[in-house]
């Protein structure tokens, strides 16, 4: 009982519970949902698909987590996704031999380099110029789409490169490569923030910027690092998305992914007001969103109502995660025993406070 209670108090309990409910729903409707088959030495199955299609979102949300932890937000990740895919495809399409591994590696390097520069730009606007993050990154969110279309010349660039296709659509060791890359980045991020002091300093800057300044933390530098990291993750996600379809679409690649990423971060228990963050929570949040998308298909919900369905589930998760909301629910079920007039009044004022 006490184990159960402390489990319920864990901050990832509720998203995990919703995840379990969604998975159970899927199994009930499609009994083969959990089955994983091996074909040609590759793993196949619904769960693998969730991981595979969720990989770009995991990456973007991973970067977003640190930004949110500093009380910031990065709206430009969708544009960075589009730009990085466009740059890589442009480079590969102009290679004399599109299947050259060296050429593809160079393309990946250049695309990630461009993403990094874009992240530094965001970080510069936020930390040195001092523009509010939502505005500073809005600039690149809008301008970045234009930039991506400039790179692609307004067309969809299609490439035919085996090595490039590997990143988003290929298999390593029987697993989709995108899963391995995403997990690798999660592990790298966990090492980076928890093995260095970056995690603590980020939480300090997000938790109390002025106190951090007075403790001697170079918060500008921390902010630049965080935005650069976020753009780098988005750039990698962009390569994955474009590799999966072997083309770059400046208009639609990564469209609205920033909103899903922010949602994943919040579902994972990191507050938009900054401070404590949880990388594991973010991964769970991203997988929850992807599972939801999959569930929409298995449930056979008509496409025109999928967004509404998603919104309802997300609202439910957010509400159930809020301690204030749960307290109100349980109070409504068990009204306070009417004793003295005073205690009743106190209960009333308490209810007002939570409201």
């Amino acid at each position: 009982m006490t184990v159960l209670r402390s489990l319920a108090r864990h901050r990832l309990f509720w998203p995990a519970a919703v995840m379990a409910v969604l998975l159970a729903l899927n199994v009930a409707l499609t009994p083969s949902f959990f089955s994983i088959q091996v074909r040609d030495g590759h793993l196949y199955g619904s769960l693998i698909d969730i991981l595979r299609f969720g990989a770009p979102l995991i990456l973007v949300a991973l970067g977003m987590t640190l930004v949110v932890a500093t009380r910031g937000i990065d709206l430009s990740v969708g544009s960075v996704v589009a730009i990085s895919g466009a740059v890589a495809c442009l480079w590969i399409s102009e290679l004399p031999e599109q299947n050259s591994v060296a050429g593809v590696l160079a393309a990946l390097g250049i695309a990630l380099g461009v993403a990094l520069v874009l992240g530094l730009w965001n970080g510069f606007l936020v930390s040195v110029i001092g523009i509010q993050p939502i505005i500073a990154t809005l600039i690149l969110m809008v301008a970045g789409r234009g930039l991506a279309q400039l790179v692609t010349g307004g067309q969809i660039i299609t490439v035919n490169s085996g090595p490039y296709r590997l990143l988003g659509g290929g298999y390593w060791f029987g697993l989709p490569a995108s899963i391995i890359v995403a997990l690798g980045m999660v592990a790298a991020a966990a090492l980076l923030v928890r093995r260095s002091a970056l995690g603590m300093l980020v939480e300090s800057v997000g938790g109390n910027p002025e106190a951090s300044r007075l403790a001697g933390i170079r918060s500008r530098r921390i902010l630049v690092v965080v935005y650069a990291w976020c753009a780098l993750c988005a750039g990698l996600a962009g390569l994955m998305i474009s590799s999966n379809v072997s083309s770059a679409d400046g208009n639609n690649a990564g469209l609205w992914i920033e909103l899903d990423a922010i949602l994943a971060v919040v579902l994972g228990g990191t507050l938009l007001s900054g401070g404590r963050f949880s990388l594991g929570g973010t991964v769970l949040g991203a997988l929850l969103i992807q599972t939801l998308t999959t569930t929409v298909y298995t449930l056979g919900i008509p496409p025109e109502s999928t967004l509404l369905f998603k919104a309802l589930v997300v609202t439910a998760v957010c509400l159930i995660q809020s301690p204030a909301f749960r307290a109100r629910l349980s109070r409504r079920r068990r009204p306070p025993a009417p004793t003295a007039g005073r205690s009743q009044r106190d209960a009333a004022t308490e209810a007002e406070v939570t409201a």
Partner: protein
Amino acid sequence: MDPILSMTGIRKEFPGVVALDDVAFRMFPGEVHALMGENGAGKSTLIKVLTGAYHVDAGNISLNGSAVRFAGPLQAQQAGISTVYQEVNLCPNLSVAENIFIGREPRRLGRIHWTAMKNRSAELLRRLDLDIDPGRELGSCSIAVQQLVAIARAVDVSARVLVLDEPTSSLDADEVATLFGVVRTLRDQGMAILFVSHFIEQVFAISDRMTVLRNGKLVGEYRASEITPVDLVRAMIGRELATLDELEPPRRRSGAGQAPVFAATVDLGRKGNIEPFTLDIREGEVVGLAGLLGSGRTELVRLLFGADRADQGSLRLGESTVHLRSPRAAIARGVAFCPENRKADGLVEDLTVRENIVLALQARRGWARPLPRRRQEELARSFIDRLRIRPADPEALVGNLSGGNQQKVLLARWLLTEPRLLILDEPTRGIDIGAKAEIQKLIAELAEDGMAVLFVSAELEEVLRVSHQVAVLRDRAVVDRMPNEGLTPDMVLHTIAKGEAA
């Protein structure tokens, strides 16, 4: 003459604190009454009780001879008690006239009667001898004018009692004179005016009667003509810390003697914050800063830490002259600073005791050279033991600690950086008497080990107990420096109140 307002036996408790204890207060029509007391004395609580923002736990309020009990500020206002707060809470994007009538606009056929509003505003402003265009946007007026508009609004709701909570804190001398002109006009019309201010001179310039509170208790009511500024300050600051001396008086040696000077300023200053000052602090010496709230104590120490940048004068730390551009630069030169407002400027409440303790040291090392977790725990534990931080759990969230323990965490953070100059801004405010004695003792020990300490406190007794030298501030300037030999609180009081050494 009967008082228009009288409050008796007022008691107000908050969880863990008695904010007001058996306080009496009365006001007469046609008088300006100053409510005086240091921070935390209970002034704001009393005002909030008076204006209906708080309910009392005990006591009676009577207005014009009949007992009243307000459910909220609106009721108090309808009964004739209007309040103008320090932060003007009007709408800067609306016009002066709109602000005066907001929420009670004159109407005709269900629509706002703009002409009537404008005419009535103009008439009201004229009655107060104010030359303000009612159509002007409030945000484009100076703070002083906004304050006057707030008063005009308060007066127009047929107030008999007007509460002015620190109305002059952001006004210059001319603006204060205008404000006082309005206050006198209203007084002569028979209004009772409650005036709260930290500026002693202004209080004596405007008020007829004063009530002094200290630590939630009534010290006394005085006629302005019967009390001197020195007695007033003494009544405000009080002397009730005899108990503390008995706990364990810190061993204060006679002084640092001829130890080398660690920090020296020559005419260091910052416009609008603190006048140029010259001060030096020797190794092993505790320099105390005495002065009332708003006298520039915090502004002074922030310059020495680089929290604000000086715009004139020079500062020498150790052997070299420095221009501090950031706290980080000061930390690199061995300066540490426990700020006055622990929650806002000191602690990161989301983080644990351990993380808060190692924060400054980690910041100095940079993110790429982390302190190993085990080392962090060792350091945290050693300071938890040394400073007796409770709960003795390195993983407790700092936000859940009591004030005294939070202060100790902050001290631990800075002692860990092994500073050569430790600046403590009100380190003992709002903490219990035991923790206070421990912190004072610690200061004495640190100085004995050769650390230079700059100690700021609003309590004179405390400053005199720990310091070797005392610097006195008044009106944002250092007005005197004296060695703490045979110095008594009275002598310092005289300097604070008048600016002349006793």
